[in-house]
């Protein structure tokens, strides 16, 4: 076995895994507080991607710059969905499954809206650095992928500070850990849930924008990434932020290994194999309970 190929594979797996981690971070945050899986998560990613695509093709905005549009936009969309579509279900004391079904419905609407607006075609953005690579010895990595990884790191760091150091962040963790006690502290649960859904959507919106320079966008891309986000969330331990990152990197590396050593066509299947193995041997996830 050629060592440099192995290192190359692991490196790109880790870099890609950072992006997977960011996608799952929003899902795990929402799960931690609301105890529901957001099945429209991949569709939020799709919105982030289309935002970058439009800004690039119509206004020549660099995909990395468009993050300043996609993040606030998805934050507002997330807030609106929680406030006007999910909150009424909570108020009516409907079971959690109904909320999950609602998110699935939102996902379908978004996918078909994209189909109507953008046609089923695949779009990419071609920038001057799209194919640029950075090399260290025999290892070469895609430059946009490397930047993505570093930006993911930065965003995760900001989220960490927000969750750990601000009163609102602490309140989010409090609601996740003991909702009745949080109420007794005077925390407005509804407000925290709205903010959490907004932040979760904003995170995946950022991930969509970061994905655009290295991937292509089409209306049905959402399902693929909802599934990946779900796998990563479960791999890491539902509701754990650190777990999302560990799970993301695990999935990234496994997929790249599969593509290199087994077959390109089987790389997604291998992700599921790991998923099932983790569920069998470590049902609480790789990291398990953590502070978020």
């Amino acid at each position, binding site marked *: 076995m050629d060592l440099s190929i192995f290192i190359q594979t692991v490196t790109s797996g880790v870099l890609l895994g950072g992006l997977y981690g960011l996608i799952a971070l929003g899902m795990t945050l929402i799960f931690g507080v609301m105890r529901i899986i957001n099945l429209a998560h991949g569709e939020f990613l799709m919105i982030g991607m289309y935002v970058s695509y439009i800004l690039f093709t119509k206004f020549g905005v660099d995909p990395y710059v468009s993050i300043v549009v996609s993040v606030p936009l998805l934050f507002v969309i997330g807030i609106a969905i929680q406030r006007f579509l999910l909150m009424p279900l909570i108020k009516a004391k409907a079971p959690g499954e109904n909320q999950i079904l609602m998110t699935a419905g939102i996902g379908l609407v978004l996918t078909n809206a994209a189909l109507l607006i953008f046609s089923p075609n695949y779009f990419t953005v071609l920038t001057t650095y799209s194919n640029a690579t950075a090399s260290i010895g025999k290892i070469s990595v895609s430059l946009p992928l490397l930047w993505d990884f570093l930006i993911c790191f930065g965003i995760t760091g900001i989220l960490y500070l927000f969750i750990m150091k601000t009163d609102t962040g602490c309140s989010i963790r409090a609601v996740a850990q003991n909702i009745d006690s949080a109420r*007794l502290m005077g925390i407005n649960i509804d407000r925290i849930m709205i903010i959490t859904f907004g932040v979760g959507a904003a995170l995946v919106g950022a991930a969509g924008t970061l994905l655009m320079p290295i991937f292509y966008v089409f209306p049905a891309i959402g399902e693929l990434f909802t599934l990946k986000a779900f796998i990563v969330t479960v791999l890491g331990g539902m509701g754990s932020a650190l777990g999302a990152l560990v799970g993301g990197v695990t999935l990234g590396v496994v997929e790249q290994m599969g593509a290199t050593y087994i077959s390109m066509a089987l790389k997604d299947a291998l992700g599921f194999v790991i998923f099932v193995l983790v569920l069998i041997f470590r049902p609480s996830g790789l990291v398990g309970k953590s502070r978020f």
Partner: protein
Amino acid sequence: MLSVKCLNVFYGDAQALWDVSFEVPEKKLVTIIGSNGAGKSTLLKAISNLLVSRSGEIQIQGHVTTGLAAHHVAELGVAHVPEGRQLFPLMTVMENLRIGSVLPEAKAKREETLREVFDLFPVLGERQSQMANTLSGGEQQMLAIGRGLMLRPKLLLLDEPSLGLAPMLVSQIFEVIKEINSRGITVLLVEQNVQRSLEMADEGFVLENGRITMSGSGQELLVNEHIKTAYLGL
């Protein structure tokens, strides 16, 4: 401070509280005693609006709170220290205390209150950065009370603070409750430790099967024949 009138609370179809009425005067220490399942915790949850009451009226400092969201009750200066502590397990002692003071008024005085709480419970000061779920039972109870105090409450609801603690710790907790009350905070104490709580209470109410069956000053109840046989085992 607190007045409860004809309160009826249900769990589904099962009625847990029947026409409960009582008052807690300002700055007093009032205790509600009763056996397991009498509805003591239910009553406190109804006061802090964790539970919705079917009928009746609760007033806190003249504000009708029935029907408000629980966090609005906390805004009126009610801190409820629930049974079983209900801490935020994966947060540090410091973070638990911080969460206790997220409301604007409490936040403005966070540092000051924090000093008071550490003064009352020095052990919490020593364990600031320890996770709540790694504390001993007694320390957890102290943290739960401390977290309640961080709200700078006018009314403190304490649900079985001595439950499951070693006798020495029980004494310590009761001393602290007395101290808190002497600082001008009204206390409504729910206890199974009837002897201790009646000894220090200004007033006591007996809750049996969801109904208030008896009331009087702490001393009066202590010498009551029914209380003696039913609760003190004398």
